[in-house]
């Protein structure tokens, strides 16, 4: 007998198909179907979604799973459980593991762990350069054969323009998108936060927006010249938004993501030296935040990505300068986006869900993020009004480095179906 799922009575929102209505959703053998026979209805597993939102499973283009090498921070098992708790059914993991994913063997190891431990779909990326050192191209072709979906130096930005140009051209030959964390490293050396009034007040070295803007502009130029597709990770500066907007107007194949934290917080969040708010690119000024929100809502920024970067309590519990950059994001993303974008009236629920589903999937060509008939039955069900408190016990991630730790948020995932099976809490 087939496995049949019947999600009833929910508000079904599928932006890819312009669907927003109260109704039922069906799946058979892990695929979305438009109808069921009476016998199938009788045999179906029924999930009552009355009063809840039913939408495609979220897609995250920017997750650090830390395995291999840093499994004290996160593993593929814990990270994918965290993804499921956040409503994510597909995640793209970064290659800054130990060893870095710059060879087919490491990708093979990661894929085996995914096969064994993951509760959601995981798509690995490979390094752009050997050792993420920005000096020599990684074996992109072999990495693709091993199963990567994109190339990136994950947190490192290639500083040498000639190498970046060749890396883009080479990746394009294999149809791979290059993901780039844009940062001029010389301008951010020893810096800990955004350069502005708060860095002056706190006495912390500030990262100028220019460090990001220069590299975003560089990437746009290289993409325009080569025709290769590039995706800018974690856009944080208003000027960079303008660069992306103009590039898109000229038809340059560039896309961009923004994180919930850059949409919700500013550099003022660091005023008490909270290391949970130490991230790179840094939380910027209110004017940047407002521009990012506008750009996401008008489509200049393509999608939301979490940049989920788990670190242990011990690593974050120290002097600000010595704490690592990055925060957890998978489990709080929905709540933060609902509160920042929808509850404030900046965009409607359907626009937000598009930015979490089919739009990120489209960036790297994943057949995900839709409830179209025949699509994988990756479905998220959530209650936009349900409150929950971010505590270590409430989180699935091995790490709890969230700026929202201890806070009560609204918007809670009720079920996460991957191929028609509820994986939440597994």
């Amino acid at each position, binding site marked *: 007998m087939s496995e049949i799922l019947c999600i009833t009575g929910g508000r079904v929102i599928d932006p890819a198909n312009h669907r927003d209505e109260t109704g039922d959703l069906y799946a058979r053998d892990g695929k979305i179907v438009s109808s069921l026979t009476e016998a199938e209805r009788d045999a179906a597993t029924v999930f009552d979604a009355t009063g809840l939102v039913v939408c495609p499973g979220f897609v995250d283009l920017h997750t650090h799973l830390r395995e291999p090498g840093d499994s004290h921070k996160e593993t593929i098992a814990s990270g994918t459980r965290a993804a499921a708790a956040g409503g994510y059914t597909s995640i793209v993991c970064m290659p800054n593991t130990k060893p870095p994913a710059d060879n087919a063997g490491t990708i093979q190891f990661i894929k085996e762990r995914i096969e064994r431990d993951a509760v959601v779909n995981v798509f690995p990326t490979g390094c752009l350069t050997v050792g993420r050192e920005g000096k020599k191209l990684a074996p992109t072709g072999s990495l693709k054969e091993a199963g990567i979906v994109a190339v990136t130096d994950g947190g490192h930005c290639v500083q040498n323009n000639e190498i970046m140009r060749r890396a883009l051209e080479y990746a394009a030959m294999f149809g791979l998108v290059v993901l780039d964390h844009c940062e001029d490293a010389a301008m951010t*050396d020893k810096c800990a936060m955004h350069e*502005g*009034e708060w860095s*002056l*007040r*706190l*006495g*912390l*070295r500030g990262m100028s927006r220019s460090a990001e803007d220069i590299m975003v502009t560089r990437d746009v130029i290289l993409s325009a010249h080569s025709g290769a597709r590039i995706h800018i990770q974690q856009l944080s500066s208003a000027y960079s938004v303008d660069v992306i907007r103009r590039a898109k107007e000229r038809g340059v194949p560039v896309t961009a993501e923004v994180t919930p934290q850059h949409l919700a917080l500013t550099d003022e969040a660091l005023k*008490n*030296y909270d290391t949970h708010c130490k991230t790179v690119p840094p939380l910027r000024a209110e004017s940047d935040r407002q521009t990012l929100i506008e750009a996401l809502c008008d489509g200049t920024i393509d999608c939301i990505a979490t940049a989920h970067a788990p670190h242990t309590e*011990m690593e974050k*519990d*120290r*002097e*600000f*300068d*010595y704490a690592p950059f990055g925060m957890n994001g998978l489990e709080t993303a929905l709540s933060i986006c609902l509160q920042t974008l929808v509850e404030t009236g900046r965009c409607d629920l359907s626009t937000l869900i598009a930015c979490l589903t089919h739009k990120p999937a489209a960036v790297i060509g994943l057949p995900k993020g839709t409830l179209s008939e025949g699509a994988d039955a990756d479905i998220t069900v959530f209650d936009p009004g349900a409150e929950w408190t971010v505590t270590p016990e409430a989180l699935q991630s091995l790490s709890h480095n969230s700026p929202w730790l201890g806070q009560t948020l609204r918007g809670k995932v009720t079920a996460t179906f991957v191929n028609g099976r509820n994986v939440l809490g597994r």
Partner: protein
Amino acid sequence: MTPSPAWTRKDLIAIEDLSREELDIIFATAESFKSTLGRSVKKLPSLRGVTVVNLFMEPSTRTRLAFEIAATRLSADVISVMGDASSLVKGETLRDTALNIQALSADMIIMRHSAAGAAKYLSEITDMPVINAGDGAHAHPTQALLDAYTLREKFGPDLTGKHVTILGDILFSRVARSNIWCLKKLGAHVTLAGPSTLVPREFENLGVRVCHDLKQALADADAVMLLRIQHERQTSTHFPSLGEYTSMFGLNKRRAAWLKPNAIIMHPGPINRGVELDSDLADSSRSVILDQVTNGIAVRMAVLYLCASTKSLSTAQ
């Protein structure tokens, strides 16, 4: 002496948090202690039985000595720990170091640290009073307090309307930041001067004037506060050379003539003689640099006494 009931702080981390009333309590307390400095028997019993740990994770001579002397004058037992001789170089965390000091029954910690925010972090993980003796480029509250105390001695207790120019490496200076807050709270006008790379315009958001023209910056100053050029902290990108700095911004006799006749010259030390300040000015009658050092004892005695009082460590209660 009886501590003021208006002082309720366990720690002194930064000037920014202090009220005008709290500043006045510190100055009044310091004044009482200063009057004892000239006695033949200088010790007071106020912190008898109290163990103070001077935890200096960064090199320092005058601040460490001043705190040691201040605590000793109050009859505390003082133990100084240097960063390069502590377990921190073995990889111990600051949390563990602090908890161990607490477990060893110490009563107060005075800490200097290269990381901004380190003193606040320490104050949150220990019950002991924490006195910030400088944290990165963030704050050096007792330096600002002794600077203000010295200005009050020279110009009277009301600094309203006085003009103070801080000249030099503002961007990397905890002294400048603490002085900005302190002087503004006391009603003084603050001008920041120096090269644009070390004195960014964004400081204007803190309610001060930023000026890259030295003549203008000195013209209406009642006091000019010089800062050491911390060439060891900066990359080579912030100014071309010490020679270039001296030729453009060093205070020499010719430039000192731009000051008002009764304007005073201050410096937190250590001075790079011939770089930011010429020797003849440093040693001139206009200089109050050694007064600052002396006042540092009284101000630090006041701070130790007040914070200890909040934690009921003082035997005077």
